[in-house]
């Protein structure tokens, strides 16, 4: 590829997978430090971790080390196999989501034709993992958290999918590289200075998508399943040590993943507007930086909302999903379809 060496397909795949893993983990760690430790602290007038490393930058490493050395305990009546399997399923669904997200003209693990459809399908696997965790913990609080999560995540799948359809109609393809290309080379009524980022034309879709993402991540104001002051971590309450670390990583990696997807769909992904005339070679370097920046920015918005609001009650958030977001998204689709034909 870049190095001018011809590699076999399986070698390419391994390199891509490893690069993807490293990128995701680094980005997740960076996001955790930046937002969970620092930004939220500044919003609360405090400093956050300052001791581990300069300005607390190694705090995540310290926390990972702490979790790794904990004892592996489980409740007496729990189903051990399912108890152990649940975090793995959640983590798998998170990492599978990153397979199609492009970070450059060629930097994608597998450029599937069904791009965005695949992403949404993979992200819904985590519901199974959460339900397994809640049941296998043999703990009423965990069980209640898992039931709430099941209802919530399934309910918010629909606005998530429907919001994306408007983008797909506009771009004319499910493939994420095509969507990025359409935004980069597109123009708004002939003015192509900033390409055609779909956030402008799909603003409703963008808002519905971001709200649905907030709910899919079970972040406040939709964090009934975790509900810190009621269920005290809900379905995760019986997990500790490495298993909890897996949940932790998958929570933030999913946040980064969804933010990357959102920036690909609405903000133009790794591409800059084609009218700026950057060469393909330059985009190999700038592309990953661009998508990382956009994804980190959107994760920042998610966390900003997370730490500013109280949480909805389960029936209130269901009402929001079914009665507000889905009709909005459907109207958005109808409008997009009409406008696409007209213009």
């Amino acid at each position: 590829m870049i190095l001018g060496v011809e590699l076999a397909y399986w070698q390419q795949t391994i390199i891509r997978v490893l690069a993807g893993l490293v990128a995701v983990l680094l980005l997740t760690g960076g996001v955790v430090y930046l937002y969970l430790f620092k930004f939220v602290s500044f919003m609360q007038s405090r400093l956050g971790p300052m001791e581990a490393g300069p300005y607390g930058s190694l705090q995540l490493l310290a926390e990972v080390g702490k979790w790794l050395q904990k004892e592996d305990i489980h409740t007496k009546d729990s189903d051990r196999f399912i108890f152990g399997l649940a975090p793995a399923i959640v983590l798998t669904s998170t990492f599978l989501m990153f397979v199609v997200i492009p970070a450059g003209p060629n930097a994608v693990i597998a450029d599937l034709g069904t791009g965005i459809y695949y992403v949404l399908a993979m992200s819904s696997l985590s519901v199974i993992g959460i339900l397994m965790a809640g049941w296998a913990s043999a703990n009423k609080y965990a069980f209640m958290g898992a039931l709430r999560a099941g209802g919530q995540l399934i309910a918010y799948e629909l606005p998530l999918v429907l919001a994306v359809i408007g983008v797909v109609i506009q771009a004319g393809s499910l493939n994420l590289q095509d969507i990025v290309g359409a935004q980069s080379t597109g123009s708004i009524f002939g003015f192509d200075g900033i390409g055609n980022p779909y956030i402008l034309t799909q603003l409703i879709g963008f808002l519905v998508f971001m709200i649905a993402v907030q709910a899919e991540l079970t972040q406040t104001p939709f964090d009934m399943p975790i509900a810190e002051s009621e269920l005290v971590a809900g379905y995760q309450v019986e997990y500790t040590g490495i298993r909890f670390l897996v949940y932790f990583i998958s929570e933030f990696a999913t946040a980064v993943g969804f933010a990357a997807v959102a920036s690909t769909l609405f903000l133009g992904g790794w591409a800059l507007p084609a009218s700026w005339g950057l060469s393909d070679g330059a985009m190999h370097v700038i592309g990953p930086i661009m998508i990382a920046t956009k994804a980190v920015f959107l994760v920042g918005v998610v966390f900003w909302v997370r730490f500013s609001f109280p949480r909805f009650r389960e029936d209130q958030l269901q009402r929001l999903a079914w009665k507000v977001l889905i009709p909005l998204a459907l109207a958005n689709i109808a409008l997009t379809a009409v406008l696409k034909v007209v213009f």
Partner: protein
Amino acid sequence: MTAITDRQKLQYIAAKAADARVNVELETEGMTLNIGPQHPATHGTLRIVARLDGEQVVAAEPMAGYMHRGYEKLTEVRTYAQVTTLVNRIDWLGSFANEVPFILAAEQLMGVEPPPRATWIRTIFFEMSRIANLILFLGDMGVQLGAITPVFFAFRDREFVLDQIERVTGGRFHPNFDRIGGLKDDLPKGWIEDNKRTMDKVRSFCDEIEDLLLGSEIFQERTRGIGVIPADVAMQYGLSGANARASGIDWDLRRDNCIGLAYPDLDWKVWTHPDGDSFARFWVRLQEVREATTIIDQLCDGIPSGPVMAKVPRIIKVPEGEAWVSTENPLGEMGYYVISKGDLTPFRVKIRSASFNNVSITPWLLRGVYVPDIITILASLYFILGDIDR
């Protein structure tokens, strides 16, 4: 083909039994959920046994007593100064307010009249303890509802009030400042000036909370119409303080039965709300904090000069008699019934704490309510375990 051994049969039966146990326990109709005693939402070690049907509560019963420290028994063998110290720790957030009714009762028995300067400064600290207590409530209600940011603002701005209390009494949380006949010491130089600045900070905190929490549509959806207590039910259960005023009962001991404090000389307002839901309780307490800042400003402007302690003997022996004094504490109506037989120690002190009665309404209130609403209601009723259990 191997024969199934007895051991394998037993293992199979045991596994089925464990499954059945879990199934029964996790059955959602008629699930008994134990909230507490170790739970972030119960302000201490309160245990609520709730019988659920899905997410709705069928019956709930509070079980207090996990924090019982035997105050009323302790006071039988402590001198009045020692009791004053102990009593700080009943409602530990607004601790000066606990000392006041006890000292007033003892002063009634001794027939001692504190000098006016002492009465005014006592009132200042009474109101400051109210502010300290209620600021925490405002932040804490946010946390119970999921907004974790207001509580940090609450602690940050509460520090200013606690610093002011520390400058005079030496202790941030347990001032131990009230004495029979007056106060322990006088105010240091520059304290009144700083107090004005502190009250400004408290007022800006109230504005911030109003923007961040009260005005938020999510907060309003979570609290409006939740846990409605009609006025007559409130009176039957003996609710007091902001809980009663939020149900529309216009009763405030500072105005209606003021003993020994400087309220009759001041110009202030009692806040009530007709709704009686959780939102009303939050709103009334927010207005009470603002009102307390204006009260303190008026008090600071007009402190009479003079001594801060009346003439009392060194060794205090309270003459025989009984006295009951109750005051409008931050949590509600707190009263002390002091029986003295002429000794160094009181014969019996009965402590009527506000939170005990406030919590008694939970079985009635929590029927038919969703599980998240239990937390909202408990947070809005606002009790302190030290106050319930003593």
